[in-house]
């Protein structure tokens, strides 16, 4: 009897000791120390959960850029080491991941895409003086005086005025309805849009919230028909846009359908078929733009990953090339100097083909570049007008 309990005790103790040591080593272990030959640029992005689609696109854009750069010898002779860490679309995990890579002294941080996660992590980036290239489009990101955050696409405070001008000048609409997806992307766009409409004295006669993943838009279209607006601004993700367009055509909704980037994307046209014809709007980043570099990128992406990219793919790709160009210009790896150099920097495709389009970063980290007014004609996106950069 005594022998047996003694036996059990001893093994229990051994197990606990072992457990303790295991724990210590597992948490304490430096996750991925950068070697002298490599430059450490972690990507922290939504790879599972609600943001998985955008995050996967963003990641694959980055992978493409990193492969190209490394194949040509890297930046200043150093290869890029870009691990991809999943935020699980959750701000607390995003914060943990950024905290973690900070311990290993990154040169730059890439991601996240969700604006909420960007807002949490950019504070850490600022504390550690590490630049962060983000995919988020919420206007708040660049309005907090953070000198280490850089966008890779228009903030909504820039894209919405362009749409608003088009609705006022191009369509001469008196009333407008807005249909938006109720997440941080859609709500941010909707709030900026409504503000721009108010300042142009255009009346918003219907303001309709939809759910992400919604499949049945019958009720929403019924409401839009009742509102009878001159123009309907649609701000939802790709699949929802396509389902909405089909329902709108079915119920023969009147009024111009206006979108921003997603509504005119190739994916929506492919999914909605004929129902997408006649859709107009503003297009920021798209592989369908009349710019050969962007088309070529789209083909390259499709070949490498076997699916068509959305604007997040381009954003990720551009981020890496912006870092490359700015670093080579500096001639050294210095995070703080890079952040300083990025402000006011213009990169042209002649200097750096990977940037795809002439782009400027302003003092807040906002990006400025040309964009397009487009229309879907015969199942193809047609660019009607090129809108120049704002800063000109």
């Amino acid at each position, binding site marked *: 009897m005594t022998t047996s309990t003694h036996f059990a005790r001893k093994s229990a103790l051994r197990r606990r000791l072992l457990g303790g040591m295991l724990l210590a080593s597992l948490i304490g272990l430096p996750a991925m120390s950068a070697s002298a030959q490599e430059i450490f640029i972690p990507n922290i992005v939504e790879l*599972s959960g609600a943001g*998985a*689609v955008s995050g*996967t696109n963003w990641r694959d854009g980055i992978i493409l850029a990193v492969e190209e750069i490394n194949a040509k010898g890297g930046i200043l002779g150093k290869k890029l080491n870009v691990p991809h860490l999943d935020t699980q679309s959750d701000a607390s995990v995003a914060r943990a991941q950024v905290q973690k890579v900070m311990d290993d002294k990154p040169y730059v941080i890439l991601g996240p895409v969700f604006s909420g996660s960007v807002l949490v992590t950019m504070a850490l980036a600022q504390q550690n003086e590490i630049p962060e290239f983000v995919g988020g489009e919420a206007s708040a990101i660049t309005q907090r005086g953070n000198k280490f955050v850089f966008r890779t696409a228009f903030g909504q405070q820039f894209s919405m005025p362009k749409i608003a001008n088009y609705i006022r000048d191009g369509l001469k609409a008196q009333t407008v309805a807005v249909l938006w997806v*109720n997440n941080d992307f859609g709500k941010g766009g909707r709030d900026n849009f409504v503000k721009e409409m108010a300042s142009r004295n255009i009346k918003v006669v219907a303001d*309709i*919230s*939809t*759910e992400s*993943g919604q*499949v*049945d838009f*019958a*009720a*929403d279209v*019924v*409401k839009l*028909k*009742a509102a009878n607006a001159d123009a309907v601004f649609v701000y939802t993700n*790709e*699949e929802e846009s*396509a*389902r909405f367009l*089909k329902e709108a055509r*079915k*119920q*023969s909704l009147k009024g111009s359908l206006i979108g921003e980037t997603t509504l005119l994307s190739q*994916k929506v046209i*492919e*999914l909605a*078929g004929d129902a997408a014809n006649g859709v107009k709007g503003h297009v920021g980043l798209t592989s369908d733009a009349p710019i050969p570099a962007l088309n070529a990128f789209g083909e390259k992406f499709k070949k490498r990953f076997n*699916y*068509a990219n959305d604007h997040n793919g381009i954003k990720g790709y551009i981020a890496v090339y912006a870092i490359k160009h700015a670093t080579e210009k500096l001639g050294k790896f210095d995070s703080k100097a890079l952040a300083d150099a990025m402000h006011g920097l213009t990169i042209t495709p002649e200097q750096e083909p990977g940037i795809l389009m002439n782009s400027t970063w302003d003092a807040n980290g906002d990006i400025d570049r040309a964009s397009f007014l487009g229309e879907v004609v015969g199942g193809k996106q047609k660019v009607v007008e090129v809108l120049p950069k704002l800063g000109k």
Partner: protein
Amino acid sequence: MSSFLQLLVSGLATGAIYALVAVGFSLLWQTSQTINFAQGEFVMIPAFFVLVAIKVLGLSFPIAALIGIAVAALVLGVLFKRVIVDPMLKHGVLPLVVSTIALSLFMREAVKDFYSSQAQPFPSLVADHDITIFGTVFSAQSLALLVVALVVVGALHGFLQHTRLGRMMQATAQNPTVARILGIEVERMILYTFLINSILCAIASILISPIYLAKFTNGETLGLAAFVAAIIGGFNQARGAMVGGVLLGILDNLCAAYVSAQYRAAVPLLLLVVIILFRPQGLMGRVEERTV
């Protein structure tokens, strides 16, 4: 008026799908006390079986659809019962609940990692065109969906009520002990319900995917809707689940149009709470007796 009709038909089509999924859900609960938290994913995944059959094996859509249903019956019916449900039943409801939650996560991640994270176009049973009746526009797709779903649910109802096998299955669901005494092969009956559930899910999958597009997240809302529909209608009655599903689909559309779009998801849940408080056996259900 025509807009009201429009909403009604649209809601009916969505509701018919909910009903298909909810019926299977409550059948599983009745015969084996399985609360299947992966039910939504059971509807999401057969579309990918079909897509694999088309893209990898190069089969035509109708054959691929049949293969999809067969694979679903095998994997989501037989394998699911043998590998996951059977070993856990003796441990009570809770481990099985957790296991199906993990299973739903597994299926979602598997599709995302091994097929695609993007929504996939899916072939349709009927050509996509619109039909106008009494000033209301119907899409041929949702009409076909509605018809097939109603036929399937009706056939199932007839099978359970009017065939010997169906009645044996019902007896098993209502009281396995007595059923066993009556000489019914309870084990086999339970396996049949798992088969029926998987086939219903596969049919639902093939019906909705042309409209919803095949995507790894499709199960999230569907599973929850089936769950709610089953409880509203009456957890222990297949008939109840049908009524619950259709009611839910119509209610969702009417609320989005006439009450609040921001809170459209809240309405079925409020209804659920009200039902639980005032008619816990569900609209069509019987009072369940407590066993020791």
